[in-house]
């Protein structure tokens, strides 16, 4: 039995829900703002020749508005978002929000926020899923299905204790020299790391192809990862969207921002109301089954505006979560003065796990050795004049790296998404406060990481560890959690709303807790699991 399904949003969750629904024989309409990625520039050029061959290299690497320059005093970030990824964060006219204690990022791009991800694919373990109404075994087939669709490289190693191994892993990417030395250093002192520091190091799993995969090409190490892979070796959801577009059962409606939905007297959703980006006109699209996959914050906004439109009530959705991230730069003293090779993979190739007494509180880190990243964000932070700092950075370039530590989060009442009036317009309003024990947890992890790096011959320059603001990791979740008890503003294990019988959430909204991992791989797997459940014949009547 074929059912029409309307999906809002083309991010990681939306496209994998849609593709599963299409494979099951259902018709899918996807409503999306859908800003498009520009065509890649000189797609066969490697990083070094790109700088030589571009007519205006500053325009490409820094942007026409110089938005790629990290100027002094700007939150001490070590990376600026490259101008080539501006389309990911471009907002439609009139878009706005208010936030307290949270610096959110929104995406209206085809493929959503994962168009700018670094490809980390980390399955949730049974420990991670303790608060979920299902276990790893229920999700495992979907992880395999995602790996089959997108291509994930990885190996079984010491990090497997934090990340269950699934079938379908491709051979790992080639290590750069610096990463290989760090990994060898860990392997030589493995016993000390594990016993004294509770620290485990291994290969990260990444959605970047090491071998040809379907009609996609493998990574050829052009060194351009940071500016957007021109070969599509690094997976992004727009690739799956393109596959959906080839299916006759798929209708894509771009240029529409869904603002709210309408409900009937039985709280069934009857239509979504969207504003056209072309002419600002309003459009009403009838729906049978609505799947919100616009991302946790935007899906929350759609529901909140819908409730307000129907009842005048301003609801509050507690439980917003995000991974706190701490960036810890380091210098490998053994590599100072040595040259680096630009023709290597630029994102993380090795990762680390810091074990905790409560396994849900383990800390996950991704270790990136710096190669073709722009250096001015780091150089300006050295405590010298720029000439001296540049000399030091030049000598140390091949010795530099950054560990991005991720910390878990839990649903707490005070962290919420609601609406607030601003200039006569109701906008999404976000409130967030970190837990009281956060400084102690972060401090302990950074101390252990410093000790681990020291054993590998690396130092962390004093004062350069940087706690990113909440919201920066873009791992938002928790506003409509899956629960066993049928409470308001929750969903069942299949992501079906307990408030609106023909509404599903396929994005991070439904996560009841957030482990210290990039959630994107699990978003895709969970969307597949939910699609099977939502579109199962037993679920087709309501």
């Amino acid at each position, binding site marked *: 039995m074929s059912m029409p399904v309307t999906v809002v949003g083309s991010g990681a969750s939306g496209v994998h829900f849609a593709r599963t629904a299409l494979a099951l024989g259902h018709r899918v309409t996807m409503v999306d703002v859908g800003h498009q990625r520009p065509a890649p520039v000189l797609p066969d050029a490697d990083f070094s020749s790109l700088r030589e061959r571009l007519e205006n*290299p*500053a325009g490409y690497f820094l942007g026409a508005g110089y938005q790629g320059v990290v*100027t002094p*005093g700007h939150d001490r970030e070590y990376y600026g978002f490259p101008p080539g990824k501006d389309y990911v964060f471009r907002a439609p006219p009139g878009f706005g929000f208010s936030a307290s204690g949270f610096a959110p990022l929104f995406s209206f791009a085809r493929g959503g926020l994962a168009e700018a991800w670094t490809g980390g694919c980390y399955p949730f373990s049974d420990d991670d899923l303790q608060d979920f109404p299902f276990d790893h075994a229920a999700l495992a087939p979907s992880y395999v299905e995602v790996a089959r669709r997108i291509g994930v490289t990885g190996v079984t190693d010491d990090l497997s204790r934090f990340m269950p191994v699934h079938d379908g892993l491709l051979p790992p990417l080639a290590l750069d020299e610096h990463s290989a030395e760090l990994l060898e250093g860990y392997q030589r002192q493995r016993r000390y790391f594990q016993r004294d520091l509770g620290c485990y190091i291994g290969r990260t799993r990444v959605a970047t192809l090491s071998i040809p995969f379907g009609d996609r090409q493998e990574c050829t190490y052009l060194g351009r990862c940071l500016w957007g892979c021109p070969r599509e070796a690094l997976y992004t959801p727009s690739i799956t969207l393109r596959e959906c577009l080839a299916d006759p059962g798929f209708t894509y409606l771009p240029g529409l921002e869904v603002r709210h939905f309408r409900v009937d007297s039985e709280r069934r959703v009857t239509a979504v109301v969207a504003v056209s980006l072309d002419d600002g006109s309003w459009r009403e699209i009838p729906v049978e089954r609505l799947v919100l996959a616009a991302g946790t914050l935007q899906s929350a906004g759609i529901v909140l505006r819908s409730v307000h439109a129907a009842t005048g009530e301003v609801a509050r959705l507690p439980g917003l979560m995000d991974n706190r991230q701490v960036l810890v730069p380091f210098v490998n003293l053994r590599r100072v003065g040595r040259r680096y090779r630009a023709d290597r993979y630029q994102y993380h190739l090795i990762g680390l796990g810091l074990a905790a007494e409560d396994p849900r509180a383990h800390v996950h880190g991704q270790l990136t050795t710096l190669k073709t990243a722009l250096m001015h964000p780091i150089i300006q932070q050295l405590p*010298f004049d720029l000439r001296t700092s540049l000399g030091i950075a030049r000598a140390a370039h*091949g010795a530099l790296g950054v560990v991005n530590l991720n910390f878990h989060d839990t649903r707490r009442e005070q962290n919420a998404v609601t609406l607030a009036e601003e200039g006569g317009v109701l906008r999404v309003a976000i409130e967030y406060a970190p837990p009281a024990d956060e400084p102690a947890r972060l401090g302990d992890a950074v101390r252990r990481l410093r000790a681990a790096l020291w054993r590998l011959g690396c130092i962390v320059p004093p004062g350069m560890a940087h706690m990113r603001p909440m919201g920066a990791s873009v791992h938002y979740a928790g506003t409509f959690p899956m629960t066993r008890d049928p409470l308001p503003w929750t969903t069942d294990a299949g992501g079906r709303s307990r408030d609106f019988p023909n509404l599903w959430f396929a994005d991070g909204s439904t996560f009841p807790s957030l482990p210290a991992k990039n959630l994107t791989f699990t978003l895709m797997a969970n969307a597949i699991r939910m699609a099977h459940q939502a579109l199962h014949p037993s679920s087709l009547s309501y």
Partner: protein
Amino acid sequence: MMAGGLAKECDVFTRHISGRPAIPQVSDQYAAAHRVLESMEPRDGHERWLLRVARTGPAACRVADAWARLAAPHGALRQKLVVLLAILEVSPPYAAELDQPRGGRGLEWVRMAASGLGFVGALALGVVLFLPVRLAAGRRAG
């Protein structure tokens, strides 16, 4: 500032950072950045004095930069220098020279030590040149 003044400033600052003169493409980018970026103008007498000294030549620029790193890290001089550094690191012919070591490991350590000593000297001069102005500006503001 007039275009010619900016080009001269760019040339001096480029010599300070890279040891080479500015090529026209870099001067053009530097001027374009001034048209779109905020915070490139001095906010007080201390920052104006820093810029005035920095523009006189690469050696003076190093002294002003060393002092600014400590006393005005977010001020106009550092903003200008960091923007220029960002332009240089993506612009041939500077890019390749700026991001790889030039000699062996031992030589690089020696270079870094010498550079560090140069910084200490520049900072000491900076204290003499700029601290009185800074104190006077603070007294006037107080």
